[in-house]
């Protein structure tokens, strides 16, 4: 299957075009085209998972994309553990969301558009995860951004929705500039290649100057911030909840927003070497992730809209993933991505079910006491909540624990503390949501009822997965996630002789392409050769120059202390929520007391970051620019036009009519007409329609030309 991996994105892509072209004819039935395509993709992804576990052999296939004088660009698929996992996650969640939308979007005014966009999104996301070069990555990165924009403003008749779409699109553009610049830098420093493996290998080998790598990594980090909702570019993600709920589950929780995390995991060599992750202490990636997880979690407390609570929770969890990669816990970060996709999609679809039941509201103040009325939703939502809060043995516990443990073992104490703080907050705000929705008295005016099966079955499947997937990396398991999905790249030590080797590498640039082919052919031999495995740059530096080793980020043993503390902290968070929201023991006017009051306002205003971006930057530039343009338009341009008009009318027009128009212009045109007429009657004789006469003129002219040429020569 891995050799045919390009088929997996191709099938939804075909489905997109079919729905787009024949949507009118199929009407509501077009959803089944999408479901069929995603089922096919899911089957292929599942076969791929099976084969990967069986063989664990990285498969690369590529074709020449385009060629020019200076070289060529290849594009292809690169199927390793990470890609295999992502293929499975994306197809699974996408398929379930397709099914769920059958009911949720029934009778929608743009039903076919919705399914077409879902198909396109699935295709682009699947292409993103198997891309073997940064250029293909960039292309699909932009495509998923486009689909996100289309689906957020799906109900664009409402101004808020189209504004949310624009905000998402424009905020993402800021980061995309970083991505493009980063890719261009890496293209040149890694020896004119877009190939991801080569870039990783070059970054770790020391043939690129550290400063350059740092700049490239920071540029790419901007893209991570925008796509994966990291502070300060997270502001679009809560607004993106304006889209239909299944879209929020698929795009803004499970798949698209993890594209940034995926990109870091894929280009880990660049980040690892550029940000000196192995030195411990602190680095930019870990800092961004650490700040994001706390800020995101704190803002989730003051939201009354359940989808917004989940959106801030997503931001916070994405912060965990980024921080995990920042502290060098590669497996932990990727594993959290994997588990989070399932339980967060489950929670979002549960929120959709709640709104379906309660008159399309997401406001938790109008819910309450739904435990009895919607038992399936309650059960699945509780499972999702507990998984998110990190209660063992549910999925979130294992992955979060691994991240915290990585931060401890790799000497990132600040990140570990931030992680614990965020964990207690996560448990508390999820407890708050759970109690507000399902316990107490019903406060709305609708007649809530359980959603139909076609919605609840996908949610139940996701809840089931949220229970079991965490066990894949449990310390007592025979086979572990970390063995299936890992980052590995062959590295040659080029430190020390950096200058000279880099020059040699450039000279060898052309051979490199041939070398790759050979390497592919000898792939099996290389695997047999069993390189030494190293975990840090220091170890690479200690090698003999030119020695080739295999780089893998370090994995750490399960630590009972960290695990125990994280469980305890999660339970404390839940208890706090129980105390305040279920037992109602907290003082009623707590929020009126000043420090709490101020904090509440600060959180409600989203730390004023939105205000800064929208009012400060967007309006700040738009206002003066608009005023200035208006002034220029009114005073200068209009003045000039008016002045010219008045002058012309008074002085120029009479002269122009009498002298210029009557005499010069008319004369010119009459003369031109007469001349043309005369020429026409003269040349008409040539155009006698006799083909042989034409031939005669032709030969005659050529003969004269030949004579002239002969005489001149």
């Amino acid at each position, binding site marked *: 299957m891995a050799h045919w991996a390009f088929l997996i994105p191709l099938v939804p892509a075909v489905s997109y075009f079919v729905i787009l072209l024949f949507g009118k004819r199929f009407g509501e039935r077009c959803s089944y085209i999408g479901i069929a395509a995603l089922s096919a993709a899911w089957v292929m992804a599942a076969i791929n998972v099976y084969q990967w576990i069986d063989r664990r052999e990285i498969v690369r296939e590529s074709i020449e994309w385009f060629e020019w004088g200076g070289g060529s660009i290849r594009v292809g698929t690169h199927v390793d553990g990470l890609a295999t996992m992502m293929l499975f996650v994306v197809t699974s969640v996408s398929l379930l969301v397709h099914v769920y939308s059958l009911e949720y979007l029934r009778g929608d005014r743009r039903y076919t558009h919705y399914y077409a966009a879902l198909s396109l999104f699935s295709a682009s996301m699947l292409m993103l995860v198997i891309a073997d070069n940064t250029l293909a990555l960039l292309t699909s990165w932009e495509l998923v951004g486009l689909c996100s924009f289309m689906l957020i403003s799906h109900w664009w008749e409402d101004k808020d929705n189209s504004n949310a779409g624009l905000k998402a699109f424009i905020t993402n553009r800021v980061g995309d500039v970083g991505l493009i610049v980063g890719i261009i830098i890496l293209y040149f420093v890694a020896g004119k290649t877009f190939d991801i493996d080569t870039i990783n290998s070059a970054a770790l080998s020391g043939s690129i100057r550290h400063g350059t790598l740092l700049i490239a990594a920071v540029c790419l980090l901007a893209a991570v911030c925008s796509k994966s909702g990291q502070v300060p570019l997270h502001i679009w993600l809560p607004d993106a909840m304006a889209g239909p709920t299944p879209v929020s589950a698929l795009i803004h929780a499970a798949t698209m927003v993890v594209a940034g995390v995926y990109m870091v995991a894929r280009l880990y060599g660049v980040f690892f070497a550029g940000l000196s992750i192995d030195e411990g202490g602190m680095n930019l990636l870990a800092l961004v992730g650490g700040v994001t997880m706390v800020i995101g979690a704190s803002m989730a407390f003051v939201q009354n809209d359940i989808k917004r609570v989940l959106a801030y929770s997503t931001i916070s969890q994405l912060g965990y993933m980024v921080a995990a990669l920042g502290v060098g816990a590669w497996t932990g970060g990727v594993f959290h991505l994997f588990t989070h996709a399932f339980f967060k999609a489950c929670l979002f679809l549960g929120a959709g079910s709640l709104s379906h039941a309660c008159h399309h509201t997401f406001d938790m103040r109008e819910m309450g006491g739904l435990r009895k009325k919607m038992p399936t939703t309650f059960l699945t939502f509780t499972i999702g909540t507990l998984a998110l809060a990190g209660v063992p043995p549910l999925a979130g516990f294992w992955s979060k624990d691994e991240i915290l443990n990585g931060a401890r073992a790799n000497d990132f104490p600040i990140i570990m503390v931030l992680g614990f703080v965020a964990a207690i907050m996560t448990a508390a705000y999820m407890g708050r949501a759970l109690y507000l929705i399902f316990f107490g008295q019903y406060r709305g005016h609708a007649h809530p009822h359980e959603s139909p099966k076609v919605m609840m079955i996908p949610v139940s499947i996701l809840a089931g997965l949220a229970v079991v997937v965490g066990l894949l990396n449990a310390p007592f398991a025979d086979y572990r996630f970390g063995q299936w999905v890992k980052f590995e790249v062959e590295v040659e030590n080029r430190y020390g002789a950096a200058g000279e080797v880099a020059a040699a590498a450039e000279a060898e640039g052309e051979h490199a392409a041939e070398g790759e082919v050979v390497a592919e052919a000898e792939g099996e031999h290389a695997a047999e050769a069993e390189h030494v495995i190293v975990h840090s740059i220091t170890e690479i530096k200690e090698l003999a120059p030119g020695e080739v080793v295999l780089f893998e980020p370090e994995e750490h043993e399960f630590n009972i202390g960290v695990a125990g503390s994280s469980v305890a902290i999660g339970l404390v968070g839940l208890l706090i929520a129980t105390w305040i929201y279920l037992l109602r023991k907290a003082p009623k006017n707590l929020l009126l007391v000043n420090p709490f009051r101020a904090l509440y306002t600060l959180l409600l205003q989203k730390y004023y970051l939105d205000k800064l971006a929208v009012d400060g930057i967007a309006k700040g530039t738009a206002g003066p620019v608009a005023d200035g343009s208006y002034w220029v338009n009114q005073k200068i341009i209009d003045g000039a036009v008016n002045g010219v008009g008045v002058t012309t009318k008074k002085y120029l027009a009479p002269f122009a009519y009498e002298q210029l128009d009557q005499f010069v212009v008319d004369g010119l045109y009459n003369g031109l007409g007469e001349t043309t007429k005369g020429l026409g009657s003269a040349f*008409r004789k040539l*155009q*006698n*329609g*006799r*083909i*042989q006469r034409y*031939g*005669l003129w032709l*030969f005659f002219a050529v003969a004269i030309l030949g004579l002239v040429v002969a005489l001149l020569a």
Partner: protein
Amino acid sequence: MALNQFLLLSLFLFCTGVYGALVRRSGVLVLMSIELMLNAANLNLVAFSAFYKGELSGQVFALFVIAIAAAEVGVGLAIVLLLYRNLSSADLDRADSMKG
């Protein structure tokens, strides 16, 4: 053998072709005259190719011309056939509907 003899023959063939193409009225004969001109050019090519020993491009080019001439005759004959169908004769003087 000297080059001149071939060139003279080629010149003769070419002039015959030009003459035929310009004065003959039948479309078929005009086509044949055009073939004569093409073959005169071919003869030139081959002659020069033989004159400069080891230079094969002239011969290769001649082969190309022969192949293209075959295609051209196909198209030309089809045109003449259509003329005949529409005007009931292959007389080129009668095909003067382009006259301005």
